[in-house]
C-alpha cells in the first residue's frame, strides 16, 4: 500500500517537474528580452528542480541517496537565485536595459501577453 | 552495421570539427578551443569503446554481473589531465603573445615577425 502511494506521488512530482521544465524552456525561447527570459528561467528552474528531486527522493528509501538529493536541492535553492541576481545586475550595469512599455508597432509589447 | 558503428562515426565528425578549428582558424584562443574539442572527442571515442551493453559502472556491488571496461576510463582520466595542462600552457602563451605583439591573430603576428627579420 505504502509502495503504491509512494510510486504515484513520485510520478506526480516528476510529471509536474517535467512540465515546469518545459514551460521554462518555452519561456527562454519565446520571451522578448533578457530580463523576461531570466524571469522565466529563474522561476521555473528552482521549482522544477525541487519537484523532480522530490520525486526522486520518493523513489528510493536509501538514507545516503536521500541525503545527497537534499544537498543538491539545497544547492539549487541557494545557487539559482544568486546566479540570476548576479546576472541581472551585471547586465544592467553593462548597458542592457529591460524592454519597458514600447509603442505597439514594436514587438516589445509581447511581454504584456504573459 | 549502421547502428553498430553510429556512435563512432559521430565521434569522428566531432574530432574533425575540432581539428578543423585548429588548423583553419587564425585566432590563437580559438585554436586552443579547437584543440580542446579535438581532445575531448578523442576521450569520447575511448569511452565509447569501454561500454558494454547491459553493463554498469565499474564499481563493484552485489548482484551485478556485467561491468563496463574500467581500463579506458583510467586512461582517459589521465588524458583529461594532460589536456587541461596543455590548455593552461597554451593560454598562458597566448596571453604573453598578446602582450608582446599586441594581437592574437596569426596573420598579424606573422606580418610583424617578417618585419623583425
Amino acid at each position, binding site marked *: 500500500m505504502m509502495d503504491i502511494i509512494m510510486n504515484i506521488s513520485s510520478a506526480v512530482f516528476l510529471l509536474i517537474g517535467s512540465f515546469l521544465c518545459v514551460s521554462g524552456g518555452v519561456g527562454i525561447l519565446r520571451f522578448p528580452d533578457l530580463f523576461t527570459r531570466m524571469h522565466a528561467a529563474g522561476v521555473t528552474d528552482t521549482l522544477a528542480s525541487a519537484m523532480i528531486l522530490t520525486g526522486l527522493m520518493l523513489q528510493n528509501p536509501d538514507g545516503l541517496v536521500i541525503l545527497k538529493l537534499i544537498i543538491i536541492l539545497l544547492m539549487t535553492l541557494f545557487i539559482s537565485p544568486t546566479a540570476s541576481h548576479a546576472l541581472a545586475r551585471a547586465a544592467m550595469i553593462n548597458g542592457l536595459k529591460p524592454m519597458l512599455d514600447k509603442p505597439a508597432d514594436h514587438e516589445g509589447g509581447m511581454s504584456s501577453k504573459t | 552495421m549502421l547502428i553498430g558503428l553510429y556512435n563512432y562515426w559521430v565521434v569522428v565528425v566531432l*574530432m574533425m570539427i575540432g*581539428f578543423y578549428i*585548429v*588548423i583553419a582558424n587564425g585566432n*590563437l584562443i580559438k*585554436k586552443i578551443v579547437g*584543440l580542446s574539442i*579535438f*581532445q575531448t572527442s*578523442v576521450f569520447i*571515442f*575511448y569511452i565509447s*569503446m569501454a561500454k558494454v551493453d547491459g553493463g554498469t559502472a565499474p564499481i563493484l556491488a552485489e548482484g551485478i554481473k556485467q561491468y563496463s571496461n574500467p*581500463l*579506458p576510463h583510467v*586512461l582517459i582520466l*589521465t*588524458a583529461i589531465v*594532460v589536456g587541461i*595542462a*596543455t590548455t593552461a*600552457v*597554451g593560454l598562458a*602563451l*597566448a596571453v*604573453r*603573445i598578446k602582450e*608582446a*605583439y599586441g594581437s592574437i591573430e596569426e596573420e598579424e*603576428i606573422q606580418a610583424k*615577425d617578417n618585419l*623583425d627579420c
Partner: protein
Amino acid sequence: MLTHLPVLQVIVPLLAAPLCLLLTRSRLVWVFTLIVSGLAFVISGLLLQQVMATGTIIYELGGWDAPWGIEYRIDQLNALLLLIISGVSTVVLMAAHTSIRKEISPDRHSLFYILYLLSLAGMLGIVATADAFNVFVFLEISSLSAYALIALGKDRRALWASYQYLIMGTIGATFILIGIGLMYQMTGTLNMYDLSQRLPGVENTRTLFTAFSFFIVGVCLKLALFPLHLWLPNAYAYAPSIVTAFFAATATKVAIYLLIRFTFSIFGLSFSFTALPLQLLFVVLGLAGVFVASTSAIYQTNIKHLFAYSSIAQVGYMIIGFSVSTVTGLMATLLHMFNHALMKSALFLALGAVMYRFGSVKINDFHGLGRLMPYTMAAIVVGGISLIGVPLTVGFISKWYLLMALIEKGWWPVAVLILIGSLLAVVYVWRLVEVAYFKPPVAGNEAVKEAPLSFLIPIWLLVSANIYFGIDTRLSIQVAQAAAHSLFGVSP
C-alpha cells in the same frame, strides 16, 4: 639497488624536479641539477653495460605482471638512447649557469632548471617504457616542459615559435593517442610486447591500418619530417641556447626511437612495410627534406636558423637509413642518431658561447670570429666538418654506413643524391668559415674576448667526442649493431 636501475633512470630526474623548487639559490639549483643529470648518465652507462652483457632487462612497476601493470623493458636500442639523452644533457648543463645568466631573467632561473629536469625525465621515460599509453604520458611531460623552455627565450618570437610548436606537438600527440586507442581496440592490451604478440592476429583489418597511419603521422610531426617540419626552425632558433643544444641533440631522436620501436618491435617489419608504401614514402620525403632544408640553410642569416635547418636535413638522412629496412640501414640510422647528437650539441653550445659574448648569432657577428674567439670557432669548424661527413669525424662513419646500406640494397640513385646533399652542407659550413677567418671583425666587435671556460670545457668535451668516436668506432658500432640485430631478430 642494481636491479632497480631501469626505474631509477627515470625517477631520479623526475623527483629531483620538485626538490629544486625547495632550494632557493640559483647556483645551488644548478649544481644539484648537474649532479642529478650526471647520476642519470652514470645509471644509463651501467644499464648499457648490463644490457650488453645479459640481454634485455625487464622491470615491473608496482610489482604487477606485464599486461596488467606497466613494465620497463631495456634492450640495446633503449640503452643506447638513454645514454645519448642523459650524456648530452649532462654535458650541456655544465654551461647552463653561465649561459642563462645572459639570456633568462634571474627570477626564472630555478624554474628553468625544474623544467629542464622534467623534460629530461620525460624523454628518458618515453624511451624506457614498454607500455604504449605510458609513452603518451611521458611524451606530454617532455613536450609541455619543452614549450615552456622555448618560450623562455628573450626574443618575443620565442613565444610565437613556442605556440606553434605547442599546436603542432599537441596535434601530433593526439594523433598518437588515436593510434594507440585503435590498436588497443583491436587487441585489448597496451603492453608493447603483448601487442606485438597479438597484432598479427588482426593484421588484415582496416582498423589496424588506420591505427598505423595515425601513429606514423603523429610521430612524423614530432620528428619534423620534411613537410611537417615548419615548427622546428623557429623553435630552435629563438629558444635559450642551452635549450637548443639539448633539444637539437635529443628531441627528434626520441621521436625516431618511437618510430623504430613501433614499426620494428610492435607492428612488425612485414606489416609496417606492406601496409603503407613506407619505403618509397620515407625515401622520397627524406631526400626532399635533405635538399629543401639544406638549401634553406644556405640562405639563413641567423646561424641558429642555419643549423636548425641542417637538423631537418639530418633527420632526412636518418629516415632514409630507416626506410632501407636492412640491418645495415638501421645501423646507419642508429649511428647517425648517436653521432648527430654529438655534433649538434657541440655546435649549438658553441653558438651559445657566441650568444653569450655578442647577444645574437647573426652572420655579421661571425666576421673575424676566428681571431676573436679562436677556440669556439675551431669547435664550430670541427662540428661543421663532422656535419659534412669528412673522414676522422663521426659524421663520416654514419654516412659511410648509410651509403653501404644503400648500395647493398641496390639503390644507387639515392646514394648519389645523398652525396650531392652532403655537398650542400659544405656550402653552408663554408659560408661560416669564410666570414670567420677571412673577414675582419665588424666595427665595435674587436674587443670581444674568448668564451669563458665554463663554455669551452663542455664544448671541447663534445668536440673531442666527435673526433674520438670518429676514430675509435668500436663502442658505437658494437652497440648499434647489437641493437639492429636484436630488432630484426625480435620482429616476427
